């Protein structure tokens, strides 16, 4: 428990004493927000996961795509 507290304090103090690093964290957080809450949600759905319920259906769909050539 004491060790965990020490580790938590280490990270807390480290972040608190940041100077130029704070602006980098702002950039990282904005970036992660844009990626996961904008891009992933609205622009990049996982098509096979979203459109089919089981792996069997997904496999069948892919085989259909792979074999349906003229």
């Amino acid at each position: 428990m004491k060790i965990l507290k020490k580790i938590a304090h280490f990270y807390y103090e480290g972040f608190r004493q940041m100077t130029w690093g704070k602006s980098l964290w702002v950039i990282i957080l904005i970036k992660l927000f844009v990626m996961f809450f904008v891009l992933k949600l609205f622009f990049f759905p996982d098509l096979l996961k979203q459109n089919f319920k089981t792996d069997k259906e997904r496999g069948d769909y892919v085989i259909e795509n792979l074999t349906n050539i003229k």
Partner: protein
Amino acid sequence: MNELLDLSLVDWSRAQFALTAMYHWLFVPLTLGITFILAIMETIYVKTGNPEWKKITKFWMKVFGINFAIGVATGIILEFEFGTNWSTYSWFVGDIFGAPLAIEGIMAFFMESTFIAVMFFGWEKVSKRFHLVSTWLTALGANLSALWILVANGWMQFPVGMQFNPDTARNEMVNFWDVFLSPVATSKFLHTIFSGFELASIFVIGISAWYILKKREVIFARKSILVSAVFGLISSVFVIGFGHFSTQQVAYHQPMKLAAMEGLYQGKNGPGLIAMGVLSTKQSDPEYKQLKNFLFRVEIPRGLSLLAYFNTTQFMPGIKDLLNGNSEHNILSAPEKIVRGKEAIQLLKDYKMALDNGNADEATQLRAKFMSDDFQKNYFKYFGYGYLKSPTDLIPSIPMVFYSFRIMVMLGTYFVFFFLFAFLWVTRGTLDKKKWFLRLAIITMPLAYIASMSGWTLAEVGRQPWVIQDLLPTVAAVSHINASAVQVTFWLFAFVFTLLLIAEVKIMAKQIKIGPKDGGH
């Protein structure tokens, strides 16, 4: 399917993936190399106790921090693209990527989040030795992350250690070590990380040269140049060595890429290496539109044979041999491979139909045929060829492959001399007087990025039309989505990534202007 597929969808999907990968790669190589440079600098500090080395280490750590923060997680977007734009591909690769990428995720998370924190926050809070170990482990962690990604990429260039399952349409890993220790993956990893070390060394030398030109932080700059010049020089020897190893792998496993790299149309024994050359823009060969003659070329006799095969008389197939076949050298023609690929696709279709119609006996027989060694070796091996319209689809863009190879090699050769002279002059104490070289060092920084990008262009454009060599062409790997949606995300990314790049350059430039101070983080 292919007839109906909007070709602009394939092109836009490729363009979007290339754009994302290239922006991602702007940040990665510096991370790979600079972590080792600052680990070396910190080792000198711990060994000597000289506080100047601590100041140097902290400054380059700050530069690393900025690059890492801006570049972090850019690669995740590539995974989003797999699920949306390349869903057939991401399903088809099956569990081959699962293991390496999961290991990468776990290792990167634990190693980087733990040891980077100690590296940045722990200067006065942990012992010098523990801090140093954390810095080295951060460097190792960053490079091990690259290992798993490059193992996955190596598999796409040379698929081994797997078995295709016709029930699930997925490739299942049967031998992890074949995938992990594949010579293509090994050479790709080593060539790539050492080129990242070179790029980081050039970056450090370039910024340090700027300080010397400005007559600021001269001692700091000289020491930084000394470490980077040695590190860069050693790395450049490995880059050349593993580049050679990589070329050999291309010769064995991707002969069309090698033929395109050399603009070699007709196979020959003991081919020369084109040191310099300009391709003609005339459509001189009406049969194959992509084939071009040279306006001029400077050739090293038998050089390619020696480079690729360690032998001066080895036969190397040209593009025409690979398309038309060459019975003397046991090369199957492209039309024959296309026929075999179509047979593999047809058998998969028949098997699926038998299953759907409830013909269990027929399905069992077809499955047994599909999985037989003979069929796997002689037909499934060419599965991807069945999607090609014409043998000429097999030719990658020759100008892109030819020139990117030469840009990479020429710059790589130049970097050896660059490091050598930087080392010689900084050890002799004459570097400050060579203003032209200091200016050249600044100009060399973007050249290092150009060399790195050229390497990837060669590797990825050179393997077209394949997403997975011989098994899955780009046209069959893409998802059937609206091309305009891909266009929108292309431009969106171009905008967002450019903003990020501007942000990085601005933050970096500001911190470089402030210079090394023994301050916080």
